[in-house]
């Protein structure tokens, strides 16, 4: 049965010259999972916004064409909003506590009492959130917040579900579990749309695949088969590593030097709510790429903040190049250690891209003109000419993340710490960035990579697994790397 039918849909945002969506047509049936993929700016989120009526109800835009929804999708039998939506920015929430957040859509539909309680507990159980119901959302990790957002979309049992990058902050295990939930929901008759910039994650979902490029639909078929369309060559297998290796002229598999640059000795840090890290011992050597992985809320971000002095150990020591950094201010450590945080919007404040990149130099006393000149060179190295004078917030997420990264690497730090660097980047960018990082490493740099992306972690010399605040396992990736040589 047809659930949603899109006929020649075009959408133009107010004030925009070009439509964000151009002549999109397809139908979605009950029980289908449809994965929508494409680079940043291809129109994925816009398509979901149109289907969910965010455009034009909340965001102004001109819609041409038709969106037909099955009759009971306007409002279901008990008056609830019949579409469950997870927006791309799952860090924004309405209520203070997880329980109230899940209750909100139900209370909006005047569901109260035992029925409300039952639905919340059932949905929380489905996503493993029972222990988090009374927690404040602000105290949750990024992945836990994303689970809470997914639960809020599911709690009203809507027949149509729209997810925009729902696995972005989830660890691989949680992402796989999420896929299993989607399959069950689809089998139960739900129609599900999922936007993913990396459709690899959906290979096991038995999903249909729609690819957007420049606002147009260039492919609609099964996820395992790809047709060639409009002269575009689409690779049969999405193999990120192969693309990066091909882009890198040489891959130096020299072992990293056994010269410790970062060391943690019995490091312990606990937050007020009791979470944190416990008794961590770790040595990272010069020219090493060390990947740090673990489930959401495990303590990865807590650990790396100690390297730069943003958190002080409650027990234990942190050594940088053999020296205890206790008492050394973070701004001083920033001369040797560059850190890229997850969200570039936490730092962008200049009105021009080149000034934003150059700021890490100007704040250290380098004359502005010299710093901006270096920023221009870096922009040229990455073949991004033309963005120098733009406002960083006018760029897409991928480019904003690159601007944040560029502002770190412009200072040539000896040690680079990257927290989820690929989270917002599409594949084209990722290849350029990884190529630069591998060259940086060959010149003597050390890289610490915090990532959920198991494909990315294969570039590491060693991978550390952190679970519930404890470093449980460190494994060498030598055997895995040799497969690519």
């Amino acid at each position, binding site marked *: 049965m047809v659930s949603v039918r899109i006929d020649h849909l075009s959408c133009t945002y107010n004030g925009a010259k070009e439509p964000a969506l151009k002549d999109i047509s397809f139908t979605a049936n009950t029980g289908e999972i449809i994965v929508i993929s494409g680079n940043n700016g291809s129109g994925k989120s816009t398509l979901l*916004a149109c289907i969910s009526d965010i455009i034009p109800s*909340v965001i102004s835009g001109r819609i041409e064409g038709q969106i037909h929804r099955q009759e009971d999708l306007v409002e279901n039998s008990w008056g*609830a909003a019949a579409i469950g*939506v997870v*927006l791309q920015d799952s860090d*924004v929430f309405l209520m203070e506590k997880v329980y109230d957040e899940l209750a909100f859509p139900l209370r*909006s*539909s005047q569901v109260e009492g035992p029925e409300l309680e039952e639905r919340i507990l059932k949905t929380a159980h489905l996503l493993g959130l029972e222990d988090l119901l009374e927690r404040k959302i602000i105290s949750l990790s990024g992945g836990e917040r994303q689970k809470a957002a997914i639960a809020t979309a599911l709690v009203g049992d809507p027949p149509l579900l729209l997810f925009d990058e729902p696995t972005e902050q989830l660890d691989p295990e949680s992402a796989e579990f999420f896929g299993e939930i989607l399959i069950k929901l689809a089998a139960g008759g739900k129609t599900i749309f999922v936007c993913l910039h990396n459709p690899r994650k959906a290979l096991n979902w038995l999903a249909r695949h729609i690819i957007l490029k420049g606002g147009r639909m260039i492919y609609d078929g099964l996820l395992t088969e790809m047709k060639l369309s409009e002269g575009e060559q689409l690779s049969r297998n999405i193999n990120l590593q192969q693309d990066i290796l091909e882009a890198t002229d040489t891959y130096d598999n020299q072992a990293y030097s056994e010269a410790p640059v970062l060391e943690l000795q019995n490091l312990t840090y606990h937050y007020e709510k009791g979470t944190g890290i416990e008794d961590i011992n770790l040595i990272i050597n010069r020219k090493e790429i060390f990947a740090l992985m673990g489930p959401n809320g495990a303590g990865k971000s807590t650990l790396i903040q100690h390297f730069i002095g943003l958190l002080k150990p409650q027990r234990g020591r942190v050594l940088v190049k053999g020296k205890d950094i206790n008492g050394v201010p*973070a701004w001083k450590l920033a001369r040797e250690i560059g850190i890229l945080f997850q969200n570039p919007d936490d730092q962008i*404040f200049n009105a021009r891209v080149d000034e934003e990149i150059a700021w890490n130099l100007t704040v250290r006393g380098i004359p502005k003109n010299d710093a901006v000149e270096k920023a221009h060179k870096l922009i040229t190295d990455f073949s991004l000419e033309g963005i120098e004078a733009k406002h960083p917030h006018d760029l897409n997420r991928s480019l904003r993340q690159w601007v944040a990264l560029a502002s770190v690497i412009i200072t040539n730090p000896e040690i680079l710490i990257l927290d989820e660097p690929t989270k917002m980047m599409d594949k084209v960018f990722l290849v350029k960035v990884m190529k630069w990082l591998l060259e940086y490493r060959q010149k003597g740099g050390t890289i610490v990579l915090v990532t959920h992306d198991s494909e990315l972690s294969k570039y590491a010399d060693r991978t550390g697994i952190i679970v519930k605040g404890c470093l449980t396992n460190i494994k060498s990736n030598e055997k895995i790397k040799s497969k690519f040589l």
Partner: protein
Amino acid sequence: MFKSVLHKIKTGPRAVSVLFVLISLMAYHSWKPLLAYLLTFLAFAVIFHVLGQLVSRLLPILYLGCVIVLIHSLVNPSNVHYIYIFGIEGFNYGLITALRLFNIAALTQLFLLLNPLHEIISAMSWIHPDLGIILALVLSTLPVMHQQMEITLKVQTARGLRRGRFPWQRLYAYLVILIPIIVKALVRGQVIAQLLHVRGYGLHLAKRNLELGHSDKIAIFLSLGFLIVNLLLANASLLGGL
């Protein structure tokens, strides 16, 4: 006994009662009754086992209160008598202002601690359907803004930002931290609007009629009486003082 009495009164009438008590606080121009009220609110907090939470929420107000007292002591124009450099009239004025602020904060925080948020939102819709959600969003956003300030400070420090000794250096540092926060707040507002839409807010929106029970009416009547008595007492003491 207090708990069983409070349990019988709905959140809406409790809010009205709190409002009347807040207005009463404005009437006094002496520190003694204001201090007495504050101690009463703290006693209520002990009875309802929320003293620790209340105190932690009031700590920022305590610092602010101390600053208010200090500034008035030093520079209030009505200062005539001094102890060293501290004016007595200014100290008195500052103390009354700080205590009033402290009382307002204590009472409102006590109300928030003793009433579930969703019931407050529901009660507010008696006045206007959107008022409750506005309150909920303010309460959920304030800690987020605070957290965002901490995050941005960390991020900019990691990039090399130093908070220097001189005022212009500190002002620049604040700008570097504030601009991302303001931008994120604007973006957050837009996303919140989308969330409200997709989660069905407004589907069944209507001004609620508040049904008052026997206990609710008594509570409102008593608190109104409390307000009138306090206004009279405050005026009497003022006239007596004159």
